[in-house]
């Protein structure tokens, strides 16, 4: 009887993993999904001059008008300069400490301008204006744009593509480094390393795996960044390439130990047969061993990709952090996790910015979990032959 309850306690401890993953998923989605239906300008009414013929404006049009990238005329509106008035630029027209009548008077006179565009809480909005509908589409804002400036007023741009592509660049370069190097290291350790040094090199891998990423990032900033800058004659060595190389190197212990494990598990009979046929050691490696463990190499690559995608601090320090669409590995990039780390501290809990960052967290979570789940499902089950 006591035994059974004892075992239940152990089972409960194991079940905490379910709680953790469940809780993680729940909280990420609870905080991130509102991005899809919440608008960043809730509580703000858009209004224009009563004679402005436009029935509604898209958020992109509002952004372009405020940035001066388009005019009312181009959109089919009045022939007048754009006068945007929103909370963040109110002090351009009137001081926040102005007495209430003056404040109201200035807003009222702004309302007489034919090109005015108000984005204010209804309580501040002058009476003689026409409210205009600015429909917000969360999906479109996230996936139809590559501009990332999530705190821009009055309407933020939250296109995730520049960040996704930044992550893609860094991961691609990281994998290009880690996959060949990891395989080479595993082959060396299994085939050529003197037996005495085996545990020494495994210890070194362990040390490498335990290196704090912020320390690696610091070294990268001090040493690798200037090198890259010199070698490629760049203005700034903080690029996707720099981050990718460092991340690939950091992931080596994972990749190499997985490949090594697979190499050790090849049935000795196969290896002996190869030698029996007169194959050399390298012929055996290239024609038998590596093809034989191809599924394991694939699994190891998936796991390494997941690790590289999620690495935060190194990228934050050495990749230049520019949320721009980059078409070359020699440009600065910003990845998903680096964006989270850099911005979440400044985003007030519950704000639109906060929800968007959690949405990025969901994307990152889904990508890494599916990479890992895929690796788990397809991993070769023949551990020991």
């Amino acid at each position, binding site marked *: 009887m006591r035994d059974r309850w004892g075992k239940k306690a*152990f089972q409960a401890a*194991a*079940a905490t*993993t379910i709680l953790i993953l469940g809780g993680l998923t729940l909280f990420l989605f609870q905080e991130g999904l509102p991005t899809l239906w919440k608008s960043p300008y809730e509580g703000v009414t858009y209004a224009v001059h009563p004679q402005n013929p436009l029935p509604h404006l898209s958020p992109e049009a509002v952004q372009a008008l405020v940035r001066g990238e388009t005019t009312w005329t181009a959109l089919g509106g009045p022939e007048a300069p754009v006068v945007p008035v929103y909370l963040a630029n109110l002090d351009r027209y009137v001081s926040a400490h102005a007495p209430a009548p003056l404040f109201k008077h200035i807003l009222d006179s702004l309302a007489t301008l034919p090109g005015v565009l108000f984005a204010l809480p209804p309580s501040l909005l002058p009476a003689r204006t026409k409210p205009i509908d600015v429909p917000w589409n969360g999906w479109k804002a996230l996936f139809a744009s590559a501009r990332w400036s999530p705190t821009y007023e009055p309407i933020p741009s939250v296109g995730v593509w520049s960040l996704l592509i930044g992550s893609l660049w860094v991961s691609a370069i990281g994998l290009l480094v880690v996959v060949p190097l990891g395989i080479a290291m595993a082959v060396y350790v299994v085939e050529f*390393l003197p037996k005495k040094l085996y545990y020494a090199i495994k210890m070194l891998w362990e040390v490498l795996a335990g290196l704090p990423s912020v320390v690696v990032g610091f070294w990268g900033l001090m040493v690798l960044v200037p090198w890259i800058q010199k070698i490629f004659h760049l203005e700034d060595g903080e690029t996707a390439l720099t981050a990718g190389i460092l991340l690939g190197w950091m992931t080596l212990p994972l990749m190499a130990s997985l490949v090594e494990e697979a190499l050790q598990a090849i049935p000795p009979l196969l290896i002996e047969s190869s030698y029996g046929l007169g194959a*050399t050691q390298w012929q055996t490696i290239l024609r038998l061993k590596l093809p034989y463990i191809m599924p394991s190499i694939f699994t190891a690559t998936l796991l390494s990709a997941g*690790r590289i995608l*999620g690495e935060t601090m190194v990228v934050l320090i050495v990749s230049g952090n520019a949320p721009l669409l980059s078409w070359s590995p020699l440009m600065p990039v910003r990845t998903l996790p680096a964006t989270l780390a850099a911005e979440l*501290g400044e985003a007030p809990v519950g704000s639109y910015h906060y929800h968007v960052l959690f949405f990025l967290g969901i994307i990152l979570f889904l990508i890494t979990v599916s990479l890992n789940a895929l690796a788990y499902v397809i991993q070769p089950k023949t551990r020991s032959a």
Partner: protein
Amino acid sequence: MLSSPRHAPPKRWGEHIATLAVALLSWGSIAILAGIIGFLVYRGGQVLSWEFLTAPMREGMQKGGIAPALVGSLWLTAVAILTAAFISTAAGAYLSEFARPSRFKNLIEFLVTTLAGIPSVVYGLFGLALFVTALGLGASILAGGLTLALLSLPLLIRNAQEAFAAVPRALKEASLGIGASEIQTFFRITLPMALPRILTGLVLASGRVLGETAPILFTVAAYYLPTYPHSLLEPTMALPYHLYVLITSGTNIQATYPMAFGTALVLLLLTLCLTGIAAYLRYRLKKSYRV
């Protein structure tokens, strides 16, 4: 272990080059590790002093020491590892000793692998949403420590599972054979035998936890708080975050670099000691059990 052929044909010259190439690549990657350590020891060693380790920071973090960050990091690691130790040992025992092959067991093993692959910054988001906001702990040592505990659970569970599985079957069966119950066998035989490996795993995990930055960014770390924490519900500075602050957002980056080198060296030495000890113990233990 070594599968090199005893009677393989002599190598051709191309094969010698290939062998040389994999050797160079392997030792080259290790050399970078040595390079990083050497670089930081050289540059950071000039800053290291007793005052650096025991005094708080002064003058906009350009002078003084790193003691509050050091103490904060130790607190965080202690909270994380103490919390994770019990859960992970019990969970590992369940997976290795008590669970019959079942769907539930498969599910748990799958979840452990999945959790191990989730980026640490996502754990940070979770910690922010759950501990800091929903449970109202605020940015505190407790919130950060618990976040770090969650992060280290997968590694620790797998370690405990392997530790229990490595205890020779004959001993467990002998205990059961003289009439001990499964739970008695576990506490009297299996657990004491597995303890060295479990502790090794805990040391290794504390090395990892100590160096983690992303999960503590939003759950505990204070930008500048040169005092020592009085309770677990206070925020604190921590070494990795302090280093990050020093190298990215100081008012005068050039002037803070010596401090950054010192901090990086201390952080590096602490993690190197912990992972080094653990790795050494681990491979000695692996050798000793080979029958």
